[in-house]
């Protein structure tokens, strides 16, 4: 009885078009946001640095890819490289103008990634589906080659790696070795919340509808006046922007420095799996996907040994590692069989059932 549509009448189109049409949803979201900020103060370093920050970074990258693949229907395998463009341009900007607030540079670095993404999106006018995926693979390999071969990108650093110089926001260090995980977490969380909000505005408005139209039936979309090239390129640009910001956050607020190989093809696949399992064309699905693929293994690593303690058994660390892979793999298959449209669809079905619970109709 906690979740009911009854009695919440919409008298204007404005209120009818709200993201969360139900009071319960709005309360739920507020609770989650407050709890997320609360965790910054009660969470351990391990929780913040090794679980929540990476989860948020992956969620952001998954939102980026979801905009492109889930909403606009353009398959891409260049996510890792676009994240790299964000990270490398953020590094260049940060070191060239050390006095400017680092958060501004993180947000600006996404623009470089957006430009590169739009450039590599050009083939999408002519090719679709798997063939487009292969074309974006070119972006992946070419950009990764640039990261290795162009020493200018790392300021002729002998190690060839990105490092995180000390940068502060309101004189609190957020980037660099002395930054606390609490400060990093709050910055990442705030950026992810803000960018998710903007993405949700975008996908629910005219532009989002045009993306979905191009995805569902591009011929019919063109027929009603949607220019296919511009619409697809915009999707590539916005998507790469999100990936770029996620890449910058990944290197400077999570890893604290990285080499070119974190932006390899595996990263692209990793994000793609999150999007598919979370739910194509769903923002909340991006979070679910990131949680399942990133947090689940960590959780299993903690839970499995704990489960065996009462039986007086103990298993080696490497066996746990193997079990983790097996269980996560099985779960992925399980969820895909139960709901091929991803966890987001399960969530939606659950909410609809709850609306009428305890009666089936």
């Amino acid at each position, binding site marked *: 009885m906690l979740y009911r549509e009854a009695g919440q009448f919409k008298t204007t189109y404005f209120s009818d*078009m709200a993201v969360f049409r139900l009071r319960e949803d709005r309360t739920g979201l507020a609770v989650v946001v407050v709890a997320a900020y609360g965790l910054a103060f009660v969470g351990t370093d391990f929780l913040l640095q090794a679980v929540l920050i990476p989860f948020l970074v992956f969620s952001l990258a998954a939102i980026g890819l979801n905009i492109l693949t889930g909403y606009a229907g353009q398959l891409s395998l260049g996510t890792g490289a676009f994240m790299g463009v964000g990270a490398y341009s953020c590094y260049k900007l940060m070191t060239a103008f050390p006095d400017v607030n680092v958060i501004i540079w993180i947000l600006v670095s996404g623009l470089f990634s957006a430009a590169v993404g739009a450039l590599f999106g050009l083939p999408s006018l002519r090719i679709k589906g798997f063939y487009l995926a292969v074309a974006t693979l070119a972006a992946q390999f070419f950009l990764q080659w640039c990261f290795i071969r162009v020493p200018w990108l790392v300021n002729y650093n002998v190690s060839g790696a990105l490092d995180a110089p000390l940068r502060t926001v309101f004189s609190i260090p957020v980037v660099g070795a002395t930054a606390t995980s609490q400060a990093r977490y709050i910055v990442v969380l705030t950026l992810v919340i803000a960018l998710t909000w903007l993405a949700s505005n*975008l996908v629910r*408005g*005219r532009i989002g509808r045009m993306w979905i139209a191009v995805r569902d039936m591009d011929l019919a*979309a063109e027929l*009603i*006046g949607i220019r296919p090239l511009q619409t697809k390129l915009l999707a590539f640009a916005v998507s790469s922007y999100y990936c770029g910001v996620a890449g910058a956050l990944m290197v400077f607020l999570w890893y604290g420095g990285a080499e070119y190989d974190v932006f390899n093809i595996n990263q692209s696949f990793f994000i793609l799996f999150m999007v598919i399992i979370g739910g194509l064309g769903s923002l909340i699905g991006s979070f679910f996907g990131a949680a399942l693929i990133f947090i689940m293994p960590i959780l299993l690593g903690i839970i499995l040994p704990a489960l065996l303690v009462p039986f007086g058994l103990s298993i080696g660390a490497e066996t746990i590692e193997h079990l983790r892979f097996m269980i996560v793999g099985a779960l992925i298959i399980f969820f895909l069989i139960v709901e091929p449209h991803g966890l987001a669809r399960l969530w939606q079905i659950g909410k609809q059932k709850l609306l009428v619970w305890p009666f089936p109709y």
Partner: protein
Amino acid sequence: MRPPLQPNRDTDNTLLAVENVSLRFGGVKALTGVSFDIRKGEIRAIIGPNGAGKTSMLNCINGFYHPTDGRIIFKGEMRRKMRPHVAARGGIARTFQNVALFKSMSTLDNIMVGRSLKMKAGFFWQLLRYGPAIEEEVAHRKVVEDIIDFLQIPHIRRTPVGRLPYGLQKRVELGRALAMEPDLLLLDEPMAGMNLEEKEDMARFIIEVNQQFGTTVALIEHDMSVVMDLSDRVVVLEYGRKIADGTPEQVKSDARVIDAYLGVAH
């Protein structure tokens, strides 16, 4: 069923003229030297046996195909190679023989997409969903709700169209085309696969669209009773050539048309 022609209807006003249009795919001649015109405010039917080139003709008009020969003049302007989205901007809307809706979207969103061309708020307002973006969203939502009321489909407003029965999908597709407020509405077999009741509804909508909004309609249809009742003038195609053109009565009594439909004794 159909009220008599309004006397004040402007009959000399040509909206679209097709002149000597030919269309070839390699050795296959889909259309050969077809000419006809569509006048402002009329309902023009294009009929013919299967494979006569009716859909190819519509595809030429709205830019999916480019005629190999001949020209198409729309609103007094000659057009060469025109992409469908340019035709849409010019005021040509279209429905398909086998429904081409955006399956995962709701009825509401499908019709809202039809308004895309009319929406102007820039990217950054869209990003914030504030100011012009939300005002425009609300304003267009009102128009869309009017269309939904007009087509009598308010009960399926939030249903993803992929789940709707065929007859309703056709109606939503008409709604999407209407949302564009077109000058010329091309309907490719709007009543294919419908039962009698649905056909009557659809016929009523077409007449109302034509008379209330003054939209010019060009339609392809196989059901002769519908064509004869609805249309002001009929053009008949066979094997890519025009064999007759005129009022339903003229066409009905044309010997070549009867031959084309009933076959000729050899």
